[in-house]
């Protein structure tokens, strides 16, 4: 367990936008896998590594993220010492024109006594502890350790390709390169000493920069010695709407589920106290991941259902991702659809998308 390490999660990513799904919520607050938000994976990975001080920095639409994180109790981070910190700025730096937006981040690091920092993007879904990576960081001879794997280009843009020299040091960083120089794609996590990250941020403030991203840090490879660290397990990248849809469908694969969920490193999330799901007489449900509070009278195939979804008699749901509190009325027929929270699908309505171009219905819509 890591006792001298702190964590930072970047809840938004300047290159990733999930159209209407991402509008009412930060990227990190995207619902995923029936009962999670994607930040749950990164946050749980940190907690399961023994990290007890975690900062979360969001640029906009932070309300659903704040509601989700609450006091941090679900991750056992509601502590007197250390615990969970929601860092300013909560608002988009561009709209203020104030050059002091990174000071909150600077305060977070300079006020701590930890030695090492793990910084993660929130868009990676995996079950991983950072213990081994931090151990290698502590023993190795580099300034920054950057996590990568070899399946990045499967998930579409943005792909940050790392070109490493023979000793594993980064010698080039390319974003969405046409000719990929290496199969090594950055996996949204770095390990760095608290001293170095503090001085990087202090310098950024001095230069009047108002944003912070891992991409910017990786591009400092000429200035700092950045070494790659390979991850060989299963992971999913949420890079786009199609990528989100694709990643969700992977959860129906038992091999993926086993890789993501196990009892020793559980993925924590906010407890909701819904009722159990009930499958009524006449329902036909196969190959589906469903959540508490669902009431199913109709047919559901190859789909992910979040909490409290109601599927009425003679309705059919196929290859869909249905967010919480959605009501699907009698005789409706949906395939390849992502339905956001609180939607209502009326009787007999048919919606049909394509796996690469799923239909997205925005939060609260009545179709």
């Amino acid at each position, binding site marked *: 367990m890591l006792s001298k390490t702190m964590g930072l999660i970047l809840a938004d990513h300047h290159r990733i936008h999930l159209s209407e799904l991402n509008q009412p919520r930060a990227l990190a607050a995207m619902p995923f*896998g029936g009962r999670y938000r994607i930040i749950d994976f990164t946050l749980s990975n940190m907690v399961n590594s023994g990290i007890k001080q975690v900062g979360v920095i969001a640029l906009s639409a932070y309300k659903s993220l704040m509601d989700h994180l609450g006091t941090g109790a679900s991750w056992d981070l509601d502590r007197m010492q250390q615990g969970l910190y929601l860092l300013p700025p909560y608002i988009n730096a561009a709209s203020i024109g104030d050059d002091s937006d990174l000071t909150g981040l600077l305060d977070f690091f300079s006020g701590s006594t930890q030695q090492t920092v793990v910084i993660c993007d929130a868009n990676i879904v995996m079950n991983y502890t950072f213990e081994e990576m931090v151990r290698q960081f502590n023993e190795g001879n580099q300034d920054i350790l950057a996590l990568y794997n070899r399946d990045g280009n499967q998930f579409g843009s943005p792909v940050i390709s790392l070109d490493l020299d023979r000793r594993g040091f980064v010698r080039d960083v390319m974003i969405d390169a046409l000719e990929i120089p290496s199969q090594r794609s950055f996996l949204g996590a770095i390990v760095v000493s608290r001293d170095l990250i503090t001085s990087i941020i202090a310098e950024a403030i001095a230069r009047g920069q108002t944003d912070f991203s891992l991409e910017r840090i990786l591009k400092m490879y000429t200035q700092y010695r950045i070494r790659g660290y390979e991850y060989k397990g299963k992971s999913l990248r949420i890079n786009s709407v199609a990528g989100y849809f694709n990643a969700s469908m992977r959860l129906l694969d038992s091999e993926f589920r086993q890789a993501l969920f196990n009892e020793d490193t559980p993925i924590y*999330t906010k407890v909701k*106290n819904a009722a159990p799901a009930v499958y009524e007489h006449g329902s036909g449900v*196969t190959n589906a991941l469903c959540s508490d509070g669902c009431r199913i009278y109709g047919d559901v195939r190859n789909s*992910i259902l979040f909490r409290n979804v109601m599927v009425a008699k003679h309705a059919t749901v196929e290859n869909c991702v249905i967010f919480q509190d959605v009501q699907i009325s009698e005789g409706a027929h949906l395939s390849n659809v992502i339905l956001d929270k609180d939607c209502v699908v009326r009787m007999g309505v048919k919606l049909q998308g394509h796996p690469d171009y799923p239909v997205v219905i925005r939060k609260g819509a009545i179709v």
Partner: protein
Amino acid sequence: MNRQRVVAMILAGGQGSRLGVLTASVAKPAVPFGSRYRIIDFPLSNCTNSGIEAVGVLTQYQPLELNAYIGNGHSWDLDRNSGGAFILPPYQSSGRSDWYKGTANAIYQNIPFIDGYRPEIVLILSGDHIYKMNYEKMVRYHEEKMADATIAVLEVPWEEISRFGIMKTNDRAEITEFLEKPATADSNLASMGVYCFNWKALRTALMEDESNPKSSNDFGKNIIPAMLENKQRVMAYRFSGYWKDVGTVSSLWEANMDLLDYPDQIDLHDASWRIYSRNPIRPSHYIGQKAVLDRVALTDGDEIYGTVRHSVLSHSVIVEEGAVVTDSILMPGVHVGKNAKLDRCIVSINTKIGANVEIGPEVKDGIKDYVNKRLCTNGISLVADELEIRPGAKFAGSSMITGQKSDASENVVSVRSDD
């Protein structure tokens, strides 16, 4: 310690032996119920939803599971600085070291706990009833009527009065007589085991009861009759709604099935009166390619590949392909192997049912050594926790299967780590 106007004491009770092996290693209130819950979630959630923040849970039997389940009370929003949920087992003090002699004695021994909150009102609740009730309304009624004690009552069918404590009331709803399980009576108002007392009045009654060596130190048998005898004001508070004692195998089975058959009776979807519970952190449940589900309640971590009909499954249950589970209750972590057939079974925590096992009233040539018609009524079978039932084993209905019977032990293996 901070003052609390109302303190609730939950009688989590003794061994609950009418539930047989289900309470072999857990106290009755910790028995899993209704897929997502344990029995004690109902009184605890009622307390939270009624704004009661100081709750004592009295138990002297197997409190560890209950202790671990309740933890810091966080799941019920009872991790309060100025109150909270406390497990209260018996203890030794300078002059005395006694196990709880009865329900009233259990409260008597914890007078200092209650005094610490300087309450006006103490609620005495049972830990083995399934119901949703706003205790705050009852407390207000109690105060308006300026009662010394108020007992929640509900009308039961006349033919069932002999199963209950029956209250006779006058036209002002004052209780005039208390009849414990009468053969006949001219009232059908049954006590729900929910008592509201002025703490001063109760405190005095407990002291007097304790000094009476003939008393069996029980609320129903001693405290209430003594208060009536002393002409204290004891009111009846009428409740209408779902209420079920789950103290027997058949009533526990029925109450679970009620969730499927009459889901509106105890509406678990009601956002204004949530039933809180503590569940392990598991992913959503998965339903496989060949699964068939027909009137089934599921929750987190379940994986269903076979056929399940009219059954209630707790978390982390696996039903493999070809298995058929009917009219059954599977508690957390139960694993049902391929082609096994379970009919009217209640299977306790973490037990593994081997492939091709059959248990149920229709099983032919099943082992009869475990049959226990006294506890296992209506053909229901019980399977204890942490067992492994060997593949192919067949058991008759009304069995109570444990790992302790030697005469059939080749079929049943206890996988508990010690004992």
